[in-house]
């Protein structure tokens, strides 16, 4: 099957373009506006619904992303793990649960931002674009997982070699040229999200305060004298 111009654009030009934008954009923003490098949390404005958005979303999305990264870096090991169907099913169900958790959390976050006026006030247009793209990406990911299983196996066999061909600056589109449209849309949207990340709150991924996980607990006490009540 001949590789079309649109395939060349979506699966060769676009990934290189978005990676360039990502690296230059994140560095430029860090140098010019370092204090905007944050998730700009709105937890302080509303803490009740926040939990059911933030926690399921982050546990879900981190698991799903970690799965994609491992399949990219260690495809042979994933295929070896999948060599027992039971293990394959466990891996796939775990990934599906994580994807559904992320969707529930993201929908919770969107509803919260729509229904609480204070939170809506601090939500800008880029936030809505990011939330919409993430929701679309998660829904397409679950669609692919359910209707085109088993993603962990074929990602390792076909998508990983394609991505490595990009890394080696020798793109080979034969791996993905015939994949179903749902899979292609999922890949293209991933590139788009990487491309817009430097201009959104998504940059907080790069400054996650990981040491919080292992540092000693800190007790915060106020030494200010309480205000006298008149």
């Amino acid at each position, binding site marked *: 099957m001949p590789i079309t111009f649109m395939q060349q654009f979506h699966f060769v030009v676009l990934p290189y373009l978005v990676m360039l934008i990502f690296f230059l954009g994140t560095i430029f923003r860090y140098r010019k506006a370092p204090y905007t490098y944050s998730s700009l949390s709105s937890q302080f404005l509303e803490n*009740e619904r926040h939990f059911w958005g933030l926690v399921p979303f982050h546990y879900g999305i981190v698991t799903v992303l970690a799965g994609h990264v491992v399949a990219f870096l260690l495809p042979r090991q994933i295929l070896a793990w999948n060599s027992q169907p039971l293990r394959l099913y466990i891996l796939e169900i775990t990934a599906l649960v994580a994807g559904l958790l992320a969707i529930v959390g993201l929908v919770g976050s969107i509803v919260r931002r729509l229904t609480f006026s204070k939170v809506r006030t601090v939500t800008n247009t880029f936030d809505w674009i990011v939330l919409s793209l993430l929701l679309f990406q998660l829904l397409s990911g679950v669609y692919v997982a359910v209707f085109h299983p088993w993603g962990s196996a074929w990602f390792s066999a076909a998508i990983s070699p394609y991505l490595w061909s990009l890394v080696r600056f020798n793109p080979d589109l034969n791996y993905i040229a015939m994949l179903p449209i749902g899979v292609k849309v999922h890949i293209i949207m991933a590139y788009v999200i990487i491309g817009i990340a430097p201009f959104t709150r998504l940059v907080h991924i790069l400054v996650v305060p990981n040491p919080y996980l292992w540092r000693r607990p800190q007790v915060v006490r106020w030494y200010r004298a309480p205000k006298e009540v008149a």
Partner: protein
Amino acid sequence: MSRLRLSIILPLLLGFLCSVAVAQQTDTFFQQNCTSCHTIGGGRLTGPDLKDATKRKERAWLEKFIQAPKAVIDSGDPYALQLQQESRGIVMPAVPGVTPQMAKALVDLIEAESALPKSRFAGAAISDRPFTPANVALGMEILRGERKLSQGGAACISCHTIGTLRGMGGGRLGPDLTLVWERLGGRKAIGAWLTNPLTPTMQAVYRNHRLQNEEIFPLLAVFDEAARTSLPADSGAQVNFFLAGFAGLCGALGLMGWIWRGRFTNVRRNLVRKSRGVE
């Protein structure tokens, strides 16, 4: 005199080397792109046996068909429609890299190989012996990935399902293999396909991990049995998979609520209530 001799020999030598290179390129091209569906003198696979194709149809037509099979079929050409009918309705895919020069070289190759008593492209050596239950069992192990492919290729279950698979079935990226035996035309045709897969994805994935004859034979046994004893896989496995994921979701949400049951909620509301003296 020696310069004159060189001026004659050198172009001849270059011409000879170029023709050898083109012939080698054509051989490789034919091997990689045509042998999944065609033999030269080995009988019909998914597509017709190409032996003496130039005697059955004129060269110009063959070159045109090789470059754009679907376009010729769509034009209503009676011979192209007959070929499609004989191939159970399967349309020959357009193969990337077939230039007019390559099409001509391929027809030359077919003509030259047809003149030989036995062509190199007479087909894969797949045994004719009957399949046994042990072959089927081994084939299922290979298909499920429990028996590793000797060249390290991905297991069939990664992308394909088949009616005889239990549990949550196989992958759905590629077609269901339950009726592949009839679809592609039996032992020899599927054997040739597995020896040299034609679809771009399979070609890329198995390019450096070729299936061996001792792996292909048990897989053929599985396909034969599935075609005789099973119906194509239904969507039940996918529904079970989604329900398992949904159950896991409910469990995970319940677990999160339980783990963080002591979290601060209504902090501000509680403070306001306290400040108003309501305990």
